[in-house]
């Protein structure tokens, strides 16, 4: 846990603000795109074990739609936009005007998946560019990759860099929620930001915060 030793509550609050700015812009973009009010929860920043990261994302076995991209540039890291399948279906229906779309339907998924990928592209791009403005760091997104698969299989890929220095991750997690959603479970989507280990100090110093080395 060496890389975590120098991180205090103040630093976690700063990371929370970083998540706030990024996910706030993405939520606005989603609202505009869907023409619906999307609520964003205050981001939570947690230091958790790898297994707990999976739990935050719905459990290692849970099948989700996720858009993953690598952040390249001055503060590299991984970013995930994760949607439960029913929510992803709902967005696809709205975007493609195909009211009968389901993932179980084998045929003609290409347009649907490409719409979902584009949604992820817009949201993660919006998250990242506001982050870049806020920190004044050059951050470039890779082309986002879409996957419909188990949380464990997908998210573990974003933990590889961290896994070389720690068994714990700092997760900046923001939940999104449609305001008029009637379903009881309130959390509809998640943004996960997982900075690479060396990126924490770069982010802090870009924001003028001291870190004890």
């Amino acid at each position, binding site marked *: 846990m060496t890389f975590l030793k120098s991180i205090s509550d103040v630093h976690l609050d700063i990371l929370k603000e970083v998540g706030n700015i990024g996910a706030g812009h993405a939520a606005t973009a989603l609202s505009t795109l869907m023409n619906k009010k999307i609520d964003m929860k205050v981001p939570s920043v947690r230091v958790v074990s790898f297994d707990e990261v999976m739990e935050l994302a719905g459990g290692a076995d849970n099948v989700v739609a996720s858009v993953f991209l690598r952040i*390249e540039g001055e503060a590299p890291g991984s970013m995930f936009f994760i949607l439960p399948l029913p929510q992803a279906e709902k967005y696809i229906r709205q975007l493609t005007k195909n009211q009968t779309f389901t993932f179980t339907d084998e045929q003609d998924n290409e347009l649907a998946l490409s719409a979902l990928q584009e949604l992820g592209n817009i949201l993660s791009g919006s998250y990242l560019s506001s982050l870049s403005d806020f920190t004044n760091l050059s951050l470039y997104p890779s082309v986002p990759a879409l996957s419909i698969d188990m949380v*464990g299989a997908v998210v573990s890929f974003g933990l590889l860099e961290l*896994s070389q220095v720690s068994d714990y991750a700092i997760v900046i997690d923001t939940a999104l929620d449609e305001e008029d959603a009637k379903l009881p479970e309130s959390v509809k989507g998640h943004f996960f930001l997982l900075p690479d280990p060396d990126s924490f100090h770069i982010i802090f110093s870009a924001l003028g915060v001291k870190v004890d080395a």
Partner: protein
Amino acid sequence: MHKTAEIVKVGIADMNIVKVPDLIRTTGLGSCVGVVLYDQGAELAGMAHVMLPDSSLSRTEPLNKAKFADTAIKELLELMIQSGARQAGIKAKIAGGAQMFQFSGSSDMMRIGPRNVEAVLQELKEFRIPLMAHDVGGNSGRTIEFDPKTGLMQIRTVNKGNSEI
């Protein structure tokens, strides 16, 4: 009195062993490799959820031995023998090592699935453990469950359903 079978879970970068009638399971293997060592004679099985190929990639102490192929298999083998397995009776089955995402910018991390598989195979060879079956590669996540009684591994994937090796 019959003991009811329990399912022992193995987390990411974790390992454990079970005795008949219990089963052992790990969920959501992507680029990680699930390694099972088993001795049916001793009714024992061990499983490791390996995340990275080589402990030289680690930049911290202490080392989590279950995380790396080169340390996990050695440790799991020792655990098995301590629990009563015979070295000569130990066999292996493996699954995982998928390439979940295709990126053009190819750092070494992008090929981690195949590298994990190579490293695991190398270690099994090193300890002369015969590989009885494998289901590796592709681009789907896997959940695996092993029964030390039958020596069979159940594999569940999202797109291809269930199989058994």
